[in-house]
C-alpha cells in the first residue's frame, strides 16, 4: 500500500470535460467520474431536474501523488472560480495490485 492523495472535485456537468482534460494533462494515472450528482452551494441549488443537464453537477475522483495533486488543484482552481464547485484533497492508502 502506498500513501497517495485523493482529489475529489464537484463541478457543473457541462464543465466536466474541461476538468478531465486537466487531469489528462497533469498525467494522473486514472480517474473515476460520477455523472449527474446534485447539490447546493454558494450559487444556489443544482437540483438536477432540469430537462437538459444545465443544472446538474458531476463528481470526479483521482488518486495520485502529492505533487500531481498540487498541480491538479492549481489547474482546476480557475475553472471552479468561474463555474463554481469544490475541490477536496485528502490522504489515503492505495492498494497496489
Amino acid at each position, binding site marked *: 500500500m502506498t500513501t497517495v492523495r485523493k482529489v475529489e472535485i464537484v463541478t*457543473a456537468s*457541462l*464543465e466536466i470535460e474541461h476538468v478531465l482534460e486537466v487531469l489528462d494533462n497533469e498525467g494522473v494515472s486514472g480517474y473515476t467520474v460520477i455523472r*449527474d450528482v446534485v447539490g447546493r452551494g454558494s*450559487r*444556489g*441549488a443544482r*437540483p*438536477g*431536474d*432540469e*430537462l*437538459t*443537464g*444545465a*443544472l446538474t453537477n458531476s463528481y470526479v475522483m483521482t488518486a495520485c501523488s502529492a505533487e500531481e495533486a498540487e498541480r491538479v488543484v492549481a489547474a482546476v482552481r480557475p475553472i471552479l472560480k*468561474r*463555474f*463554481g464547485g469544490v475541490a477536496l484533497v485528502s490522504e489515503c492508502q492505495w492498494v497496489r495490485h
Partner: protein
Amino acid sequence: MDTSLLAANLLSPPILFFALGAFAVGVGSDLEIPTPIAKFLSLYLLFAIGMHGGHALHESGLHTSVLVTLLAAVVTAFVVPLYSFAILRWKLDVHNAAAIAATYGSISAVTFVTAGAFLASQGRTFGGHMVAAMALMESPAIVVGVLLVRWLAPAAREAPRAALGRHLVREACFNGSVLLILGSLVIGFVTGTPGWNAVSPFADGIFKGMLSFFLLDMGLVAARRLSDLRSAGAFLPAFALGAPLVNAAVGLALARLLSLPATDAFMFTVLCASASYIAVPAAMRLAVPEANPSLYVSMSLAVTFPFNIVIGIPLYAFLVRIWWG
C-alpha cells in the same frame, strides 16, 4: 376573450397533466419522473416535431412566401433579445440581463407543440415550414446574449477572442436540442412520404400521450421552481408575464404585415411569446456562468411557460381570430 377557446385548451390531456404535476408538488406528493426519462421525452418531442415539420415542408414545397416567413423569424429572433436587454438592464447587471434576454428571444418547442395540438383539436393545421421557423429561432438569441456580454461586461473583454467564436457557433447551432430538431427536419424533408410513413406511428401516433407525460414532468419541475423566484422581488415575475404579451404583439403585427395565413400567424405569435428553458440555459450556463440560472430558468419555466400554455394560447388564438376574421 372567447371562453370556448379557453375551455378547448384547458380540457385537453396535456394541459391537465401539467396541472396535475403542479398539484402534486403543491400537496407535497413524492410523484417524480426519473431524469433520464424526462430527457428522453424531451428528445422524443424534438425528433417528432422535426420529422413532422420536415414531412409537411416536403408536401408544401419551399415557396417564396415560406422563405419570407423564415427570414422574418430570424430577424425577430435577433431583435427581441435586444429590446429585452434594454428593459432588463434597468434593474439587473449585464450578465443576468443578457441571459434573461437570450431566454426570451429564443423559443420553447413544447409551447409550440401545445399550440399545434390546440389547433389540431379544432381540426386545423399549420404550415410545416413553421417548424423550420421555430428551429431557426432557437439560436440567434444565444448569439446576441453572448455578444452583449462580451461587449458590455468589462471583465469578459479580456477573454481570448478565438475561443469565443468557436464556442459560440457550437453553443448556438450545434447545441443538442437545436441539432436534433434541425436534423430531424432535414431527414423528414429528404425522406418524404415513405420516411414519414415509416416513423409516423412513433412520431405521430403516440405523440399526444408522450406530450401529456412530458407536461406532467414540466408541471412538477415548474412548480418546484416557483419558490426560486420568491426572493427575487416583483420585477422579474412582472417581466416574465409581460414579455410574452409584448413579444406576442410584435409577432402578431409582423405576421399581419407579411399577410401570413391565420394559423401560421398564430403559431408565429406563440413562438415569439415563448421563452426557452432547454437550449438557452445550457448555452448560458457555459457562456455566461456569472448569471444566476435560477433566475432565467425559473422565469421561463415556472412563469412564462404555464402562462403561455394556459392563458396565452387561447388568447393569441382569439386575437388572430379577431384580426384575421
